[in-house]
């Protein structure tokens, strides 16, 4: 008889098969957008990687020294992201999903439930990363004119690497969730232990630096993180060396690294299966009982917000409520932290890359590209968090719908809170980028106008469309987003970003490059500002007005 974990996996495969068979029943717009986005992403990223390799190999002999180092750095970054993704997805899969809670009541042995959740979380946390790895390896292979067999081996080695990093993330999460201290004193001890671990790691890095070769040390001064990436026991190095070995048709070395990664995955999963069967039941029990079941007083964020949140009435009520729920929901703050944190780290690193000493034309161009990336992230997060808000609030209409405030006002409050939050994040990060790039006063002025405009435009569009396509009933954010309204919102917010950021970017580039003369130099910034304000105003205002009409006229 088949083991329960295999039965559960087989069940999921059946579900996948059914989903594929019924693909034609999905909204055409949704399928079309996903297919177009995926293909454009793969093609665009492949082209960018290809251009990057072309640039490096045009440097001559230095490329043979630089490429292996950059490979290790690239895979280290990818590895850390995979670990983070593994930890977050693993937590949700192992402890938070309704499926796990349901299976706990079924006659499924705990060990099988753990194996099943482990496989599921590893797959779910890692599949998207192949959309980065495939263009990277593909572009390198095409540039180096590999044979097909070499490409196959290079892709093959990425499978254990992805599983290893994602699995390490799940393991890390499991250890933290099982042994994370609860209570104030224990939490303080935990923080002290982390500080000590950080200090030890820094000391270790200093020692490591002393043992590095001279050529690596020269590069380390230009490329942050290379020193850590070059550590020989890190799997990113095995991955990089394996691919480069296959590219040189050094089959022995390539297969050695493939074997090394494969066996490491085997050992890790065996260890996790053993350890998981041992600690998973206890950890699950710990998770089932809330940490604050017998709390004697309100938490610090709660007291802080109650005492200091500005405004009154519904605005204050929703401001406090949304802030507390955001802070207490790891799936919300981790997504914010990952996306904006990565951008913040990249902007901080601009200083060490010496971009501030570039020609103003270049620094202006990079500043606008940074604003575009920032706005694109803001648009996807507004689609994820702002669009479903009104549908999610519909569950509390028994209270909110009866409060002496209209639902139209509630919609405007949601818009204001989302707009202010996005504007704060956008202005802060773009200011960081501008500071690191030391941009011209014109770029600085346009960026200060652009980011709040984009923020309120995206908030208006997502809130308005979210109200027009409001779903009543117990829906999850994923269910709300996957409908027609969610897809339309995603497309329109991206289009807004293109219209509001890219066109002023091009105009400002032409202006700084000296393509305009005389009175145009003065009138162009004024027209650009008016363009930004009017386009963002219309893009946010029209859906907001339509949404307002919908919420005030419909039945609930």
């Amino acid at each position: 008889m088949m083991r329960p974990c295999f039965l559960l996996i087989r069940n999921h495969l059946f579900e996948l098969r059914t989903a594929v068979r019924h693909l034609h029943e999905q909204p055409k717009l949704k399928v079309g957008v996903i297919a177009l986005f995926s293909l454009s992403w793969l093609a665009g990223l492949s082209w960018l990687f290809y251009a990057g390799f072309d640039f490096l190999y045009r440097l001559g002999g230095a490329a043979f020294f630089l490429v292996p180092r950059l490979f290790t750095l690239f895979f280290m970054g990818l590895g850390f992201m995979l670990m983070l993704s593994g930890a977050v997805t693993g937590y949700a899969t192992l402890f938070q999903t309704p499926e796990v809670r349901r299976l706990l009541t079924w006659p499924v042995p705990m060990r099988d439930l753990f194996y099943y959740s482990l496989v599921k979380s590893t797959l779910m946390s890692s599949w998207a990363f192949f959309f980065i790895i495939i263009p990277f390896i593909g572009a390198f292979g095409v540039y180096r004119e590999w044979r097909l067999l070499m490409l196959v081996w290079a892709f093959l080695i990425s499978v254990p690497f992805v599983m290893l990093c994602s699995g390490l993330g799940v393991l890390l999460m499991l250890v933290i969730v099982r042994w994370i201290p609860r209570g104030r004193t224990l939490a303080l001890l935990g923080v002290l232990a982390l500080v000590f671990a950080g200090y030890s790691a820094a000391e270790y890095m200093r020692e490591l630096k002393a043992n590095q070769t001279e050529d690596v040390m020269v590069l380390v001064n230009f490329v942050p993180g290379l020193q850590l990436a070059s550590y020989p026991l890190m799997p990113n190095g095995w991955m990089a060396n394996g691919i480069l070995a296959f590219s040189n048709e050094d089959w022995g070395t390539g297969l050695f690294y493939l074997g090394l990664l494969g066996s490491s995955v085997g050992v890790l999963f065996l260890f996790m299966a053993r350890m998981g069967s041992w600690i998973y039941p206890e950890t699950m029990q710990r998770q089932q009982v809330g940490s604050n079941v017998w709390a004697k007083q309100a938490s610090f964020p709660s007291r802080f917000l109650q005492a200091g949140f500005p405004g009154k009435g519904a605005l204050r009520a929703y401001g406090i409520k949304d802030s507390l729920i955001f802070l207490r929901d790891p799936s919300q703050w981790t997504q914010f932290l990952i996306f904006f944190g990565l951008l913040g780290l990249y902007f901080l690193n601009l200083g060490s890359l010496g971009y501030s000493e570039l020609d103003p034309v270049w620094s202006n161009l990079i500043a606008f590209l940074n604003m575009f990336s920032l706005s694109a992230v803001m648009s996807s997060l507004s689609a994820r968090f702002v669009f479903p808000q009104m549908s999610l609030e519909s569950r509390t209409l028994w209270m909110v719908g009866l409060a002496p405030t209209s639902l139209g006002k509630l919609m405007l409050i949601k818009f204001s809170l989302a707009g202010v939050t996005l504007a704060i994040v956008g202005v802060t990060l773009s200011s960081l980028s501008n500071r690191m790039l030391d941009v011209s006063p014109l770029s600085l002025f346009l960026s200060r106008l652009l980011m709040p405009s984009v923020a309120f435009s995206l908030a208006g569009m997502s809130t308005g469309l979210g109200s027009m396509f409001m779903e009543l009933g117990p829906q999850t954010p994923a269910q709300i987003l996957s409908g027609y309204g969610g897809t339309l919102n995603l497309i329109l917010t991206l289009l807004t970003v293109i219209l509001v950021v890219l066109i002023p970017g091009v105009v400002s580039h032409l202006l700084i490059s000296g393509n305009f003369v005389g009175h145009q130099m003065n009138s162009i910034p004024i027209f650009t500002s008016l363009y930004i304000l009017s386009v963002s105003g219309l893009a946010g205002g029209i859906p907001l007005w339509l949404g307002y009409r919908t919420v005030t006229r419909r039945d609930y």
Partner: protein
Amino acid sequence: MIRVEHLQKRYGTLQAVDDLCLDVPSGELFCFLGPNGAGKTTSIKMMTGLVKPDGGSICLAGVDAMKEPVLARSQLGYIPDMPFLYERLTPMEFLLFTGDLYKMPREEVREKAPRMLEIFGMMDRAHTLNRDLSHGMRQRVIYAATLMHEPKVLLVDEPFIGLDPHSIRLIKDLLREHTTRGMTVLMTTHILAIAEEIGDRIGIIDQGKLVACGTLEELNMATPGMGKLEDLFLKLTLH
């Protein structure tokens, strides 16, 4: 206190509520009975303003709910059959949220919120996340939040689903106590024994129409030979 005249609501070809007229005076506990799909929840939702009527009028605590919906809602409390609570808020935070939403003065909210939790026996769980509370405890939080702003009219949809005997007794006593103090309560229930026990008057709705209305004695007199409310209910609603 609740005056509903010739209320109509149609969903496509279905006449959900058909010429409903009700008059519930101040301090009365009115039980609204009817089989599933009879139009109870739609009627209540029209009274709350969540569903717009096709015709008729609704007057709550002397305020025309169609002309002055915000003022009418400020006099109203509504507890649906399966109310949603924010999982990641604590009962105390939910009460403070409600107070702000109802524009109550901050000092009053801070003084009242603990008192309401105390009344409902929830003070020791005031700072526990709602997701860690049992169904009965959640219901208590919901009652505390709804009654905090002292509504003059309370609409309750199926208040006793899934509750233990302690919670049922608590809610029954509470509804009785508040009606004694002048609050008007309109409650739907499928538990006929409870309607018999605590209802001042009983209304039976079927296929959108009010088919019977009065005190238990009046209903018994109007339909001789029907000893129990259950028999009367089945006779009037069995098709």
